[in-house]
């Protein structure tokens, strides 16, 4: 039971990170290879503030999210003007730079040895509640003018500009929300594992998140949630397969790209109205 809860907690934290990638990559079509760095920022900033400076946890969490916002602004401001492929390069560089910084400031962060002795404050319930709030915000974002405009600019940037959409600002706003959300996931993460090391936040994690979004369906939040549970949860339960996780990922991605290029869910969402429709259809059939 405890094992199940801890797996679900980790999956929940990952899902908050994936939500960020969903907004940036799924909705807006920007490839950020440095998204996991925001997880690191959230984790390290909150842990150091709490442990070394004795700040109360909520305040430490808030500061960590603000630092995440500032870092997002630092990367985002110059990159939103760039072409899409360059955005991946810059965010990739940023992510690896953060890890290098963490490795080289050993007196504060513990360097490659990691930061240990953080008390466990995160519970499954807290993660679950945070997740619900984050999902609600992403749903609200997708179903607002912002989400629509993101999809529009992903599809045709020139036409989006011609419709009066401030494309650069919209990209930045989306990127910043994702940054803050992922930083928050970092806070949850460090106060659950009680130990972090820089190696846990490399580009592989960012790539994994992107793979999750793609497997789920680029345009579908339901797909992202579903794929997170399958791809993070499953290897934990199938312990024997965990060493093969990356290999399994690759096979799954290849299969999906071949047979269902738009992901499992494609553009579809499971919403309340969709379920109602399904129910009515079922009732009619019966």
């Amino acid at each position: 039971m405890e094992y199940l809860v801890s797996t679900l907690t980790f999956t929940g934290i990952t899902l908050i990170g994936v939500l960020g990638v969903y907004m940036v990559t799924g909705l807006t079509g920007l490839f950020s290879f440095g998204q996991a760095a925001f997880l690191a920022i959230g984790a390290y900033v909150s842990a150091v503030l709490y442990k070394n400076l004795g700040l109360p946890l909520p305040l430490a969490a808030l500061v960590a999210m603000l630092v995440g916002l500032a870092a997002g602004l630092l990367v985002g401001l110059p990159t939103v003007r760039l072409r899409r492929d360059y955005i991946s390069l810059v965010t990739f560089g940023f992510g690896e730079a953060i890890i290098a910084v963490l490795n080289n400031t050993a007196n504060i962060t513990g360097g490659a040895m990691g930061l240990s002795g953080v008390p466990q404050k995160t519970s499954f319930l807290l993660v679950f509640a945070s997740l619900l709030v984050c999902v609600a915000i992403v749903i609200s974002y997708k179903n607002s003018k912002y989400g629509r405009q993101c999809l529009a600019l992903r599809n045709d940037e020139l036409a989006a500009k011609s419709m009066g959409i401030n494309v650069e600002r919209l990209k930045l706003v989306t990127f910043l929300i994702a940054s803050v959300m992922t930083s928050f996931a970092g806070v949850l993460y460090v106060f659950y594992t009680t130990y972090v090391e820089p190696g846990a936040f490399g580009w592989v994690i960012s790539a994994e998140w992107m793979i999750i979004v793609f497997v789920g369906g680029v345009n579908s939040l339901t797909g992202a949630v579903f794929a997170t549970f399958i791809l993070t949860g499953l290897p934990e339960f199938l312990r024997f397969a965990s060493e093969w996780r990356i290999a399994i990922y690759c096979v799954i991605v290849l299969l999906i790209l071949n047979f269902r290029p738009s992901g499992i869910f494609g553009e579809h969402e499971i919403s309340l109205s969709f379920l109602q429709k399904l129910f009515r259809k079922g009732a009619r059939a019966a």
Partner: protein
Amino acid sequence: MSSLEVKGISKAFGGVKAIDDFSFEVDGHDIVGIIGPNGAGKTTVFNLLTGVYSLDAGQVFLDGKNLTGLPQHAITRAGIARTFQNIRLFRGLNVLENVMTAADPYSGYNLLDVCLFTPRKRRREKAVKDLSRNYLKIVGLEGYEKEKPESLPYGMQRKLELARALATNPRILLLDEPAAGLNPSEVRAFIDLARTIHAQFQFSIIIIEHRLEVVMELSSRIFVLNFGKLLAMGTPAEIVCDRAVTEAYLGEEETECSA
């Protein structure tokens, strides 16, 4: 009522002068046409007016406000809307959402409303939705709200582009070959639609079109471009009989004309 003043705009691509010192004005509640042989620079004029390309020289004023050098979205919000020659609808959004994206910049709620799920967001969303439905109704796409734009027949996609341009609340509407690819009866219907829209709204329309019957019937004045330069201007009747124009289109030949 609005006035567009274009003063001596120029644009060169490498050594090719796509547009060379072109000036014109559109005043009040007018429809004007821009015609010219292929490669004359017609679409370039639209791209310069809407900020897709930057101007090498010249200035653009809308109701006295200088739009020169503004970014694309700012020019659209200032009141210049356009449609595209090769239809550019947003796939992944349905027909209604396509129109809504164009009305969204005016919807007046912010990120805080989104994150806090305020009633204001719901109210404004509904207002934008109703507004967009109305534009769809105007162009005759009622009942297609939930369709994917790419699944619509070509003629309807053109209408959707028009509805989307209307939703940006323009003062000047630029139509880039709106009748291209339409069959004769659709062209007829488009001319009527353009008339209705023009009568219903207070803006002026500039049309680029190869189908001469569209330009001749709709516009009160026509500008003829050739190799990026203004070749002739005048009423449709004057243009038909203009020697330079016929030469540009057909080469030098003796033509008879009575006007």
